[in-house]
């Protein structure tokens, strides 16, 4: 019965990898700069999901810390790039 979990993990990994591929295509094709930033945002969220699923697969808690760090730095990066598009500089005096 525990084969179910193995197959579910494989299915989820394939789903997240396809999602990352969609985001990369949008990142390369995107007509405007904010499309590309949105694609980067989706890319890091999908990567974080991939890391969490790998943590389930290998039964290790280290992957959780990596996912937490990815969430933190991904948000900082996306917010900084959106702020740059909005104002032309990230940290205003």
């Amino acid at each position, binding site marked *: 019965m525990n084969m179910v*979990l193995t197959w*579910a993990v494989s299915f989820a990994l394939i789903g997240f990898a396809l999602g990352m591929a969609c985001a990369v295509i949008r990142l390369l094709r995107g007509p405007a700069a904010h499309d590309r930033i949105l694609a980067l945002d989706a890319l890091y969220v999908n990567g974080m999901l991939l890391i969490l699923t790998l943590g389930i697969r290998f039964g290790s808690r280290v992957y959780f810390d990596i996912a937490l760090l990815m969430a933190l730095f991904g948000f900082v990066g996306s917010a900084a790039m959106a702020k740059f598009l909005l104002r032309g500089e990230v940290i205003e005096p």
Partner: protein
Amino acid sequence: MMMSEYPLWASLPASVLLIAGGVLALIGSAGLLRLPNFYARMHGPTMGNTLGLGCVLLASMLVASAQGERLVFQELLIAVFVVLTSPITALLLMQAALYRDRMERRTASTE
């Protein structure tokens, strides 16, 4: 640590949640690829990916609890963080897109 040691009460809901999470994240990212303009594309990742993230975090909590034989809820940290920050990113991006579209239209109309 092999995966065949988890009890049934943890592995079965975790499998269902993982499949749901994979499908939701894929739908969100496909929406990013297929929807026609930016304001429509905004919806795909923000909703699909956040729902998928919730499912995967629940599955991870279940498996970690079954593995350590105690309650593990550090995943709530990621959940709270993402729920707090993903609307901020979406709002900033939407403001930037509105501003840039407006500027573009203004420069087009003066020429």
